[in-house]
């Protein structure tokens, strides 16, 4: 692929975002765009701040005591830290899938319906329709349609992770953040998730953190390389992997460290 087509719309952008835990700097002045309907992969050695950055996109870092930030992140040109943007609304628009699948100890149906219920949807028919749509969207419907009332904890690891994706999709977010969604899965389950990501980008804007460079190369359109809290380089995935501009990027993608 040549460089990205003429200015795709940026769904989200961070602007000089610095994040500290107490006095420890986790990410330093990161400016990064997440273009719409693309998959942006965040790579880098562990502890480089890529997960922290991802979590700051829907303000999950707010939950950590002592976390504070400078700079901001824009969602459709609006700062997510602005008082006029409610954090609950933000998280409904920017969904998240975690590294470790974390279904609630509830039925499969209730897991997917959770975000809808807390959003105030009570209509049973609508709930059922949205649950089915989300499960189909996460390519899980055929496997679980006969046991929606069973506990989600009875699913396999890969199924649980897809359930978590379905759960995030049910809220119909605009952006989907994925924090190493396949790191705990076997290769077959991982392939399924990657295939899913390909399908989802038609509808959603996706940012994915991964420690697996092959995965980044397979699923993403753009790649951002983080190192020690800084954004070293970002660009079209192919260019980052074939022709990195920075020495550190090259060292990392060629496996010299990390």
């Amino acid at each position: 692929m040549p460089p990205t087509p003429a200015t795709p719309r940026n769904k989200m952008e961070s602007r000089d975002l610095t994040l500290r835990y107490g006095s420890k700097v986790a990410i330093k002045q990161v400016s990064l765009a997440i273009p719409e309907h693309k998959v942006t992969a965040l790579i880098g050695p562990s502890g480089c701040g890529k997960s922290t950055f991802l979590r700051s996109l829907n303000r999950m870092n707010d939950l950590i005591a002592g976390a504070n930030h400078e700079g901001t992140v824009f969602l459709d040109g609006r700062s997510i830290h602005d008082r006029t943007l409610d954090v609950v609304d933000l998280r409904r628009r920017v969904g998240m899938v975690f590294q470790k699948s974390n279904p609630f100890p509830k039925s499969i149906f209730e897991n997917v319906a959770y975000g809808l219920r807390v959003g105030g949807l009570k209509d049973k028919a609508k709930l059922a329709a949205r649950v089915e749509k989300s499960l189909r969207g996460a390519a899980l419907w055929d496997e679980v349609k006969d046991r929606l009332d069973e506990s989600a904890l009875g699913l396999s690891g890969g199924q649980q992770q897809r359930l978590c994706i379905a759960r995030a999709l049910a809220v119909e977010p605009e952006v989907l953040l994925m924090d190493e969604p396949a790191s705990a899965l076997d290769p077959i389950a991982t392939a399924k998730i990657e295939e899913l990501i390909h399908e989802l980008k038609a509808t959603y804007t996706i940012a994915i953190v991964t420690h697996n460079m092959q995965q980044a190369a397979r699923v993403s359109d753009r790649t951002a390389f983080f190192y020690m809290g800084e954004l070293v380089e970002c660009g079209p995935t192919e260019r980052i992997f074939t022709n990195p501009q920075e020495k550190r990027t090259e060292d990392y993608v060629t496996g010299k460290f990390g």
Partner: protein
Amino acid sequence: MKHATRRVVGLSLVSLTGLAAFVIVAMLALILLDVVKGGASHISWKFLTESPTDGMMGGGIFPALFGTAALTLLMTLAVMPVGVLTAVYLHEYAPPDGKLARAVRVAVANLAGVPSIVFGLFGLGFFILFVGKGLDRALGYEELHWAQPGILWASLTLAVLTLPVVIVSTEEALRAVPLDHRTASLALGATQSQTLARVVLPGALPGILTGAVLAISRGAGEVAPILFTGAAYFLPDLPSSLNSQFMHLGYHTYVLATQSPDVEATRPLLYATVMVLLLLTFALNLVAVLIRTRTRRKAASGH
């Protein structure tokens, strides 16, 4: 020291500790054996369902059973919301290292150590003479209505006494709910209170129940706090309203043991009463232990 001496000294000292443990268990066994031996033969359906007769030298303990149950029920209704919400504050809402949270923890730890008789004085001084009197004045009662010992005041006194039990167990239960569940809920656009109501509290429910059962078991056996706040020596009628006095198994035990005109005649009654009280508290404790081990096992096997 020579090797042999060292071994002998060590072995004898280890046996000494074993002996200490044995003595403790033996004392428990002795108490249980004595109570069962003295009381089992006298427990019958009639004993459980009849009122005391012949100046408490005969009959059963139904009013005391009923009074204990009503008292602990009221106590539970009062202590659970407060205890659970306090634990929720400490574990879910308080900023870490917050001053208020630390103050609450210190207060709760100290509350747990206040002697039960002081709770009795507090119940008398605060609930009856302050709140009760104030209510009587405000509601225009000419004679004493609320400003006298009654089951409501006794149960509230016990609620304050058992508050630490509920707070500590609930906090332990909240700690056992995985952080993952909270973040997942919040990431789906749930508010903090929705997360609490839909994910955290349901997850902590078994532990909260354990706390409730432990509080009931503790509250059912305490006598000193209710001495001046509502327990009655003998009442022909069951408590009918919140300001009625009531009979109580523990207090009944005390009365039978210390104020009987004929010790030998009341002995079977006394033993049977003690046995019922013990069975009640042990059953409650057993339920608590069962819930706890079941949830711990579940937590260990889950994921």
